[in-house]
Structures are given as C-alpha cells and as structure tokens.
C-alpha cells in the first residue's frame, strides 16, 4: 500500500452529501440509495480501523462550514484544479486529509452513469466510493492486486453488505489509525510512518563514470553539426553548444537520439554535416549512413566502397578515421590510416553524391603540426580547422595547412567543462629527493 503522508488527527469524522447524481443519467439511484451506498462505503473503512463517521444534513451549518468529508457530484470544470472529462476517462477524486478547506472533499463525475451493481455500461458507485474515501482518509494509489486503491476501475466489487477490504488496504488504514478495538492508533508510533533516514552525504568528488569518460578524451568522433559540437565516445555522446556550454554534463545515448543506427552501436568512426543539404553522414566500419536531422534515411547503410577510396597501394579503404568540410575551399575531406581524400559534392541526378578529386590519397603529414592519425577534424569559429586526438586539439587558422607552431590544448577543459589539471608549482630543489613526482588529474 501507499500512504499520502497525511491523516486526520481525530477518529470521529463527519460527512455530508452536497449534490446527488443527475436522475436523467443515473435513474436507478435515488438520493436515499446514494446515502445508503456511501454509508456502506465508509463502513468498509471503519470496520477495519477505529473510525466513526457521522452523517450531517448538507444544509446544516456545520456541513457547509467545516464538515470533514463533503461529497458532491459535479461535472467538467468545478474549481478544484481537477476537471472531469465527460463519460469515461476520469470517474472521481478526493482530497487527502488536512487542515485546508478542501481536505476530505470527494467529487464524483456527474457525467458518468452511476449505478449499484449494474451492467458493464454503468459505473458502480459503491466500488468507486470505497476507493475515493480511501484517499479522503489518507491512502494513495496502490499497485497491489487485490486492492481497492488500484487507480483503474475494474467493475463492481460485489454485495455492499458483505464487502471487506483486501489485506493491503486493511493494513494501510490500520497503519494510519490503528486496529479496531486494539490499542492506540498506529500501534506504538501514533504518527504516520517515518521515511527511512537519508543516506550519509556523499563526497562531492565526481564518482560518476561519465565524468571520467568525458574528461579523459579519446573520442571516437567529433562533429560540428548545425553549430554544435558533438563528441562521440562508445555508445554515448556529449554536445557543446555554440556559446561553449554543454547541453548536459551527462552523456546521451547515441541510439536514443540518432534513430536508425543498428542496435548495439557502440562506436562511430566519423561524422560530419554535408554542406549542400545539411544532411549528416555517419561512418561506422565499412558502411555509411545519411541522416535527415536525427533519423537515418531509407536505403542506408551503404558500403563505404561506394566512395571509391583506395590506398596508395590500391587497397579499398575499410574504415574512416575522420571527416570534415574544409572551410577554406568547401570540399569534403575523409581521412583513413594516415592518408586523406578530397571530394566534391555533386547534385547531378537530384541526389547529392561525391566525386573524388584526382591525385588522392595524400599523406596526412601535409597538415603540418597536427597528429597524422587524428580522432576527427571539424571546422569551427572563423573557418579554422580543429584536429582532435586523445585529449588534445590543435587549431590550424583559416585555410592554413602547414603552420610553424601549433600548440595543443585540452579538449576536456576547453570543450567539456572539466577542471583544469592542477599546476604543479616549481618545487625547490631537494637534495634528498632529486626526482620529485607529480600527479596529474588521472593520477
């Protein structure tokens, strides 16, 4: 069972009925029968716990001002934040105990066809009333079966004279108000059960494995897609927005965002956004996919061999390390195993295809000052080329191909909001320990 955390701090409760079902919809339920059904619905609870329910005429001043459980049949919007929805759907609701005006109020949808033990096309008032009075006494919905506090209507529970609560419901009401004719309500502790103590505070050091994954670099692929940089690693990716902030510190699952990759995809080799139509190209092993937004287009994957990339020795390329569009000339560049190829996008037959430029492959060493076996490459900022390898990146300015000095920078710090490794101050020479050790972030 589940308790709402609220209960009446008294066991003598009053109840009243402020409106009855419309005779036109529920002709079989005269007001006297409604009162009788509701009386028995309350009795189901008072049979299990030391509760007393006293009926008040609805026109009495006490009922109007401060009765505990006030029943009404209303429809659609009725000023309590829980509008009804016509026949079917929601049937009723009740407010948990408390000191506010609406505590204990129980509303039935007057658009239902209410009955007592009627056919399947009607709704049994007794069954619903027992459930709602459970709420009015402090019980929440239960997923137990059997329990009258299950949220779904499951048909009449049977004869109101002989109805008894299921064990789950009996234990719930007894937890709140005690066992009838036995001891104080709630047993030893008269209050509602306490929640378990919270666990001791955890150290603030990041223990989440996603932290170290994010901050250790070694990305499978990096791509500039629509002005955001995606860092792919394993089955996940992180996403850095144009302003440099991360969409989330936690990684997202590739399979949940990029729809259409094979199940179990746990590594992508390279990704880039096509220039002419902004479609996104994924390379995984010897296949490639074309995505329209986040969904793979029909007909993919296709074999990488369609690109016609052969090594200098004439072998077909089996996988791609990196792919990007060089802002300097708008051409597509694919890298594999220390060599690269250049392509033009062609729109000949309506569909975009790639035409390989002659005189390729060439050696990656032409891109001077950067690693020759990079993880991936993107164009970013003012058309600069960013090369990523392990946890570092190198920037070749504008159309630069061979700069004198390219200083590597930290991917983790500059792109993924990781703390900078502590700088080790120059230690004074220690004659006893001539070789001082220093620890980096991994150490």
């Amino acid at each position, binding site marked *: 069972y589940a308790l*709402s955390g609220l209960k009446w701090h008294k066991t003598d409760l009053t109840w009243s009925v402020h409106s009855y079902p419309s005779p036109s919809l529920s002709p079989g339920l005269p007001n006297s029968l409604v009162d009788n059904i509701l009386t028995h619905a309350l009795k189901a609870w008072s049979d299990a716990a030391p509760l007393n329910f006293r009926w008040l005429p609805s026109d009495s001043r006490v009922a109007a001002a401060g009765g505990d459980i006030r029943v009404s049949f209303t429809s659609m919007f009725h000023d309590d*934040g*829980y509008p*009804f929805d016509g026949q*079917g*759907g*929601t*049937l*009723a*609701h*009740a407010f948990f105990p408390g000191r*506010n005006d*609406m505590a204990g109020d129980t509303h039935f949808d007057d658009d*239902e066809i209410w009955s007592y033990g009627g056919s399947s096309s009607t*709704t049994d008032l007794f069954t*619903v009333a027992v*459930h*709602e009075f459970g*709420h009015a006494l402090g019980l*929440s*919905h239960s*997923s137990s*079966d059997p329990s009258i506090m299950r*949220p*779904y*209507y499951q048909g009449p529970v049977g004869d109101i004279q002989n109805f008894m609560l299921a064990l789950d419901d009996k234990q719930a009401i007894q937890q709140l108000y005690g066992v009838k004719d036995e001891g104080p309500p709630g047993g030893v502790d008269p209050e509602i059960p306490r929640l378990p103590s919270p666990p001791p505070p955890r150290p603030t050091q990041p223990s989440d494995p996603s932290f170290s994954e994010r901050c250790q670099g070694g990305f499978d692929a990096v791509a500039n897609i629509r002005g955001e940089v995606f860092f792919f690693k394993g089955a996940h990716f992180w996403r850095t927005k144009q302003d440099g902030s991360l969409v989330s510190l936690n990684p*997202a*699952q590739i399979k*949940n*965002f990029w729809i259409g990759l094979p199940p179990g995809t746990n590594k992508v080799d390279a990704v880039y956004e096509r220039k002419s139509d902004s479609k996104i190209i994924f390379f995984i092993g010897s296949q490639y996919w074309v995505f329209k937004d986040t969904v793979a287009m029909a007909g993919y994957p296709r074999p990488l061999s369609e690109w016609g990339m052969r090594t200098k020795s004439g072998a077909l390329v089996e996988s791609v390390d990196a792919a990007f569009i060089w802002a300097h000339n708008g051409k597509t560049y694919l890298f594999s195993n220390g060599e690269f190829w250049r392509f033009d996008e062609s729109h000949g037959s309506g569909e975009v295809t790639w035409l390989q430029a002659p005189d390729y492959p060439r050696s990656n060493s032409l891109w001077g000052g950067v690693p020759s076996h990079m993880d991936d490459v993107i164009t970013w900022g003012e058309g600069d080329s960013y090369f990523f390898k392990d946890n570092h990146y190198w920037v070749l300015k504008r159309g630069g191909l061979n700069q004198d000095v390219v200083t590597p920078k930290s991917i983790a710090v500059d792109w993924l909001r990781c703390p900078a490794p502590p700088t080790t101050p120059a230690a004074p020479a220690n004659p006893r320990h001539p070789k001082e050790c220093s620890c980096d972030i991994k150490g």
Partner: protein
Amino acid sequence: APTDQYSRAVDWLSRYGYLPPPDPRASKLQTKEGIEKAIRVMQRYGGVHETGVLDSETLKLMSTPRCSLPDIVGSEDMLRRRRRKR
C-alpha cells in the same frame, strides 16, 4: 495517428505522475529514454507486460476509466498543489 497517440500518451503520463508535469515558464522536452522509462513504470504499476512501448495492452489500460488522482505523487506535484491552494 501515431503522433497523436504518442502526444496523448505523454499527456496521460504527465497527468498521472509518471512524467514531470510541464513547467509553463520553461520549455521542457521529454527525452525518448525518459518516456520509455515512464511507460515501463506505468506498465509495472498497472500490472501489464513491461515493454516500454505503447502497445495495445498499454493503450487499453490508458483508456480504462480511473480515478483522477496521480499514481506517483512526486515533490513537484505536491508543490504545485500547495501553490494552487495558497
């Protein structure tokens, strides 16, 4: 249409506490993973086969007449109710 069915299901899951209620002050997009998880919880709670997708059994349960109160009462929902009350 499947999209209608999907958005109605998200609305249902929010209403009964399986998804956080939409915040009128901020645009909050539910993730596919979050919705699948919510469907699983709803299926477990309702005693139907736990698949994480809107199968016929789940849709049938969602259209079963029921009590208006949420099944999962989270802190956000309680807070919202207290605010409305004030």
